[in-house]
């Protein structure tokens, strides 16, 4: 039983985290090009931007 409560608690924390991340992303207006941002770590060192878009 306590495990179930813990799991529910963790899942709700994840929901909260997701919503907060979304709010952060909307605030910084990077949700419109999230596809490119998600691929940034895979870019080669010389072309990886120090100028984060």
């Amino acid at each position, binding site marked *: 039983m306590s495990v179930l409560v813990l799991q529910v608690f963790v899942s709700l924390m994840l929901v909260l985290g997701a919503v907060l991340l979304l709010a952060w992303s909307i605030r910084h*207006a990077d949700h419109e*090009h999230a596809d490119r941002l998600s691929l940034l770590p895979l870019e080669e060192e010389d072309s990886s931007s120090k100028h984060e878009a």
Partner: protein
Amino acid sequence: MQARSTCLHCKTPIPPSLEGKDFCCTGCEAVYGLLHREGLGRYYELAGDKTAPVGEVSGPRSHSWLEPLVARAEEAGGSICTLDLDVQGIHCAACVWLMNELFKREKGGVSLHVNPGIGKVRLAWKRGDFDVERFVSRVEEFGYLFGPSKKTSNESTRSLLLRLGATAAIAGNVMLFSLAFYTGLGPEDGVVYELFTKLSVALSALVVFVGGWPFFRSAWKALSKGVLHLDLPIAAGILLAFGASLYQARGGQGELYYFDTLNVFVLLMLVGRWLQQRVLEKNQRFLLEDVGTEGITVRRREGDRLVFVSAPQIRKGDELVIAPGDLVPVDAEVQAPSAFTIDWITGEPDVVAVPAGGTVQAGAFNATRSAVTVVAKTDFEESPLPSLLRSTREERGTSHLRFWDLFARYYVAAVLLIATIGLFLWLPKGPEKALQVTVALLVVTCPCAIGIAIPLAYELAQARLRRQGLFVRSKSLLDKLPRVRKVLFDKTGTLTLGRLTLVDEGALDHLSEELRDALYDMVARSNHPVSRAIARALEKRSARYSAEANVHEVPGQGLELRRDGKVYRLGRADWAATGGAYEAASSAATVLSVDGIAAATFRTRETVRSDARREIEALRATGLSIWLVSGDSRAKVLAMAEELGIEPENVRAQMSPDAKAELVESLDREDTLFVGDGVNDSLAFSRAFVAGTPAVDRPVLPSRSDFFLLGEGIGAIRQAIELSKHLQRTVRRLIGIALAYNLLAISASMAGWMTPLRAAIAMPASSTLVLAFAVASMMSTRESRVEKKRKEQQLVPA
């Protein structure tokens, strides 16, 4: 080998007149070449098919507006300077990547933060170590345009997206809890049942509050105005489903909760609302918020020279020469009696006479046949012109808009009536059962088709048009286009590519200095396209301007200047060269004469848009009546009409802005489409049922039009009309499907068969069905099938 059918840069179809070429316009060709020369070919990998046509390549832009902004940023404290700018032309992540790549190549840059959602950039650089203008010019070479920071992010769209995200996240969890109830979780399970119930209640309350708020607010607003809005049954459904579920939760009947249905319902409605808002905003924000005052040029006297300056450079006390038909950019004092029109501001067609020393207001057009000198009373910064230009076109009431309004009212009334009937029918069986039936009725009759599927169909239609280079600006355009029966085209700049060019500029070099100055004095005071072409060529040759010159414009003939006992004329050969025989071959050219003896001839070139003839034929073939309306001479307009296959009876030449507007008004039966490109077309725009412009780089019109075009062709207009008809059919079918579903669902609910579980299945199933239908229908127009076939046949070069 077969030629390409789509542009290598933007993937739009190549007009037949450019068959054999790889690009749809010179802009795309230039940008494609530049990207490859600069080693930025990866742009295409990132962009996919999201690129839009670049359009006609214009010369380098003035960045006079940038200097004070950079100076202000440099003057602020600290070693790092920052500056916000608006940018036009960002489509996707590839544009962000491209700008970053170009930024990294500049010395002294610290960071570039691009906001593609609203088209803004924030630059940061080391003080004195970075050339902002150079960077801006470099990026503009790729087809983007920068302007002062004026765009602001739309708070309502941002908040709607956040509400949507939060609702989606919570709805997922509530659905998992509901699954437990449907599979037998009951009060006998003790703490788990209690926990899941409490969580369902708490999270659903959050969804009702966060996700339902936009619907409650708009339903309340409409109700307070006495209007039945479509959000009313949505709001009522949300509240009743939540209330009924709370009631069941108190009674300990988990299987009767509507929590998951409620959450999904709110989520779907939010998706629809967000789609609607996002599409329109995306198109409206594509352009610079700046109204294009940089694009308004005015002749300013500087000593014995007349210099074309952009409006923002005007300062109080500047002496400005306003040519016939030109715009006065600031409030000014008139130096000689003159007359002006301000119809595009007030709608009054009367010409206003202004005496010498009188004040003419900013935004007035010179309505006389002579240039008038005015003295600016204020700096341009204080001019009311920008706010006048920013005023947007009013949405005109149409039967289609009325249809949606009526449909929503009847729908709301019908749903509320049916729910009430259900309540009273089942009341004898007890209030609990009656409430169950009423809630089921309100939940299953959710307007999914109208709330989600129809906005999605509009989004798909608009996305399709964007790819063809047509950007929708007004909400009602796609509803209005199927009604269009008459298409009126302006000539210069709309069916042609704007400015004229001199065929042989060298002719000017053979003129004496005296003759060149006299010619400049004439053309500098005229707004005629030929005069502008000659004036541009003479400016490069440092011709001098004399403020005292008395130039008179003879309508339909040309310009006349009397100086030192000589009569200089520039215009039609039979009018200018009266004193001597003149070759018949020169009759088509503009002749410069001194005392009736021809001194030089000038031929100009006007480029017709590549697909104009084909598109006009195609539009006529669909039963539309095509009109050509121009301020140009009758001979020229008729020649163009013949070239384009427009009947002479549908041609109107030498039309003033008022005459254009009157013609549009007389023809309009809520079925006219006017396509124009100049400030003087704005009155006709306001009278037309639908208005569009290819002039995104000039002021006024994009903000006053229902759509704007990018690229060199006008083919997107026909596609928009066809697509709007297809959309109309799709919408009707969607309404048919929704009605059929509702009939079934209402019958089941009235019979008392609808349980929360069944509603939880039926409602999303019906939504998915209408969504799938909308997608399938809009992705498969007849044209797309033809396009696909063409692509299959096409041989793509390596």
